[in-house]
């Protein structure tokens, strides 16, 4: 192999070959040359060693990421307070949505006081979470005394949260698209005037940016007399059927 060819190879072609930018024919010629030329082989090995050193240095910074993820980022899940509805037995209060009145932030699992009248309400507590966390959002239905059926529809942003549908001790959670349906039915009457507590399990997606506020919006609350009512809930599609 003559010297000029080695100069050509080492001047430009060797790096371009290792970078993967040469056409197959030229790449084949370089490979043949390197396999038969000790000096060019040595140069190739030096370039490969350089690549490994650079790769190691560039990847080293990735190791620092996990600790910062666990300490630096917080996602607030806000509270939205719904309109209140009167109990009109035995018919539904209607399926029309109640919209947001106020948005309040509180600390972990703190329930917001909502006044002292006897109208039924549903409240969501706010939580703080990090991306990837599984958290329970406390939901409290208040002033549901007696034989009641409760259905609340809550809108959420599925880009940020994943909601676990399924059974809960007091009822069912269904998810369809961006809407959660919570349904509960009292068989023998709720007597706790402080209300009933419902646990809404959600997972905060890893892709949530830092300092994001995720709003959960209660769009409808329906309360009915539970006597002579049977309810079917499908956590698969979020529908609740009153029979």
């Amino acid at each position, binding site marked *: 192999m003559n010297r000029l060819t080695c100069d050509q190879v080492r001047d430009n072609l060797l*790096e371009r070959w290792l970078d993967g930018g040469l056409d197959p024919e030229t790449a084949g010629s370089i490979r043949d040359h390197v396999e038969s030329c000790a000096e060019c082989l040595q*140069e190739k090995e030096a370039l490969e060693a350089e690549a490994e050193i650079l790769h190691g*240095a560039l990847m080293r910074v990735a190791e620092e990421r996990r600790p910062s993820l666990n300490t630096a980022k917080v996602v607030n899940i806000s509270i939205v307070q719904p309109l209140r509805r009167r109990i009109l037995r035995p018919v539904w209060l209607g399926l029309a949505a109640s919209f947001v009145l106020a948005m309040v932030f509180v600390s972990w699992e703190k329930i917001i006081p909502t006044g002292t009248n006897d109208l039924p309400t549903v409240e969501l507590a706010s939580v703080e979470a990090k991306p990837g966390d599984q958290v329970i959002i406390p939901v409290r239905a208040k002033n549901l005394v007696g034989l009641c059926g409760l259905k609340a529809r809550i809108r959420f942003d599925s880009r940020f949260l*994943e909601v676990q549908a399924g059974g809960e001790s007091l009822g069912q959670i269904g998810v369809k698209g961006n809407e959660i349906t919570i349904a509960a039915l009292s068989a023998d009457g709720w007597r706790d005037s402080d209300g009933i507590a419902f646990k809404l399990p959600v997972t905060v997606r890893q892709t949530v940016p830092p300092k994001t506020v995720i709003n959960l919006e209660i769009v409808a609350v329906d309360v009915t007399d539970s006597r002579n009512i049977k*309810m*079917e809930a499908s956590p698969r599609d979020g529908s609740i059927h009153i029979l």
Partner: protein
Amino acid sequence: MKSTEVGVDLVYIGENEECGTPCHPDGKMNHEAMEKTDSDILRVFFAGDQGALETIFRRYEVRIYAYCRNILGNREDAEDALQETFLRISRQRSFEGDRVQAWIYRIALNVCRSHLRKRASRISRELRSEDTLPQTPAPTPAQVYAKQVTENEVSKAISALPEIQREVIVLKYLDHLKTPEIVDILEVSLSTVEGRLRQGREKLRRILIGSKER
């Protein structure tokens, strides 16, 4: 459809139905089909399954973080850039083609460029470092790395490169990308990528050998 009633208790309907998306009856993710290609997963995502993006995120988060960290130079900005990258992806409506990696890197690249545009002082610092480099023939890799450079020294040298050279050096060596793949990401010609790679490598070697001689 199966339907069961037990007194006034709530009961499930449709229990035996095929689970569509989004559907997580056991509380776990159902997007863990890691054998699927990135393109397949993105199609699921754009069909409405928001959770599919998490699979993509898990596949790329380390590399994209490392890319942003090496381009931007600090953890906070890199973390923000990583999140911004995936937020931008989440806002996309569609993806055509099968070069998902190039697409994600290109979004990260644009995010990083936006960050850097806000840093006029950094650019002037880069220009200064470029001006002060000795304009002698570039040392060979063997000459540079025979001197036991540390990863820290290499990181500092990479961060001292001009932005356009740093971009290609990081893309090339972080993920062992081939030059045609870098062409896809940067959307410039092959000769431009090769030129920047060559200049970047030479400058890197000069910086490293200079730091050893001082």
